[in-house]
């Protein structure tokens, strides 16, 4: 398996896509943190509104950073997943790998593993970058740098918050992975997952607004469960200005039980991986 992973990582070498996407993510993160900070500076007041505190002052800003890491990360990593799987069909290199005696389950496993390594590095770098940004804004706003606020996380909880975010990114990435496998195409998978993410955001808001039976239908969507999991990252209860997140901020009463939501996301992931493998196993490989 080590050599399969090594071969996957070799394939990524010299591809510019992860680098371009990293720049995009860094820019959006900077905007998330510095945007609210600059507008606060511009207003000339010294006191902080609650939403301003949530946006760029530690430790509250952790949730804002992770929301952006999730929202943007899910979309960008979906693009990466679609490209990892789809380009091999475009180039015809799936054939070249399979005829070397790499079984189909191993081929998919290696892809997932390679994707996991790239994705984890990508999200970790993004989180670290967000932390640096918010350290800067917290210092500039002359607020203390501490986790020790009411309902603040312990130092051990910060990595947990990050892992929670990674977990909530996973279903979107695997959706793109599945679509690329189903359509043998990067473009179809990127398009499909972007449309899904976009439509889901709108539908969740609309269905929630209608309430009743319609609100229950939100259970079908990944985002509804993601909201419940990410809500655990929130410190305090104030609203936050989450500029790049398509998800609407949920009402507390509206949230699912996080354990149940975690399980639901696991089922989505299993379904996408299982369906990809099933399709891959039973179809001819053509380029």
């Amino acid at each position, binding site marked *: 398996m080590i050599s399969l992973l090594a071969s996957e990582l070799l394939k990524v070498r010299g591809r510019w896509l992860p680098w371009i996407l990293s720049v995009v993510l860094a820019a959006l993160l900077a905007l998330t943190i510095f945007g609210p900070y600059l507008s606060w500076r511009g207003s000339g007041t010294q006191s902080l509104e609650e939403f301003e505190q949530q946006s760029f002052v530690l430790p509250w800003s952790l949730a804002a950073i992770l929301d952006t890491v999730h929202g943007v990360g899910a979309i960008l990593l979906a693009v990466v997943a679609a490209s990892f799987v789809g380009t091999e069909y475009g180039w015809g290199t799936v054939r070249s790998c399979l*005829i070397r005696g790499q079984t189909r389950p191993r081929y998919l496993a290696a892809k997932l593993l390679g994707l996991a390594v790239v994705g984890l590095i990508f999200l970790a770098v993004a989180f670290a970058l967000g932390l640096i940004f918010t350290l800067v804004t917290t210092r500039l706003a002359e607020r203390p740098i501490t986790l020790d606020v009411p309902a603040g996380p312990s130092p051990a909880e910060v990595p947990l918050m990050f892992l929670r975010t990674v977990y909530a990114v996973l279903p979107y990435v695997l959706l793109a992975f599945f679509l690329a496998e189903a359509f043998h195409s990067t473009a179809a998978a990127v398009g499909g997952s972007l449309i899904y993410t976009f439509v889901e955001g709108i539908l969740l808001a609309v269905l929630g607004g209608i309430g009743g039976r319609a609100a229950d239908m939100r259970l079908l969507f990944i985002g509804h469960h993601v909201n419940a999991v990410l809500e655990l990252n929130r410190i305090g209860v104030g609203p936050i200005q989450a500029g790049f997140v398509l998800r609407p901020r949920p009402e507390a009463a509206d949230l699912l039980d996080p354990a149940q939501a975690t399980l639901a996301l696991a089922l989505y992931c299993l379904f996408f991986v299982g369906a990809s493998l099933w399709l891959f196993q039973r179809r001819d490989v053509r380029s």
Partner: protein
Amino acid sequence: MPSHGPAPSDVVLRTVGLTKRYGRLLAVADLDLEVRRGQVYGFLGPNGSGKTTTIGMILGILRPNRGHVELFGLDARQHLAAVLRRTGAVMESPSFYPHLSGRANLRIFALLSGGVSRRRIDEVLDLVGLLGRAASKVRTYSMGMRQRLALAAALMHDPELVVLDEPTNGLDPAGMREVRQLIRNLGQMGKAVFVSSHLLHEVEQTCTDVGILKQGRLLAQQPVSELLQRGQALELEVTDAERAMAVLRGLDWVGELTRNDNRLLVQVPPERAVDISRVLAEHGIYLAELRPHHNTLEEFFLEVTGGEEPL
């Protein structure tokens, strides 16, 4: 599947009733092939006859509708990973990672095969004449260079069976000659080689055995040497073709006879020319012309395919 036939351990590749449909099109029909160690098997057929489809099924990337493939005496479907590691293949229009160098591409494939050292990679790059361009991105390679890189990839793990789908496609004449020589060498090294081609003279020059495919069906399968022996004939023009036919039919060392007016085609080794003229003269029949006739694989091909041009 139990093996049968002579020296079963020598059979490296066998297909049994292999059949593939694309919708209503029957691309490969009930194909029974057998390739042994040391054989260079030419899989000859016109474009669209099902060569690539057959090779796809042998390598496990296409699923047969019926029948199965045995490699090294094992069911290929059940032991795909194991048998493919002992196999090297060049697919039709071979594919690589275009953003990586030729050498990096080989390293990726080497990792998948296992047990290929960096030195070995350079060795095969040298063998196919690409060592000088090994650091260039594959994107910049010509069709012929990709074909050579594919050959290097197919050979680097020293496989016992080499499967090649029209490996001289896209090569210049010198390249073709080199690759044909390489294929012959592989056979002499005791490997089994299965090579498809739509070029008769290529098969004639490089292969020990030939199977002829037409519209997905195997029409004939035999050693090239037998074919060429079959092909040895004398062409004669005689004064009395009718009587000459009768005389020659009575000789047990004369094979098939065909007549065209006063011209006869006699299937007989050319060194029998003297005997032929003597016997006919004894019967008062005289030769206006006598010359050796080299029946080519092409004639055989046309004969079995019912006159369809191979190209």
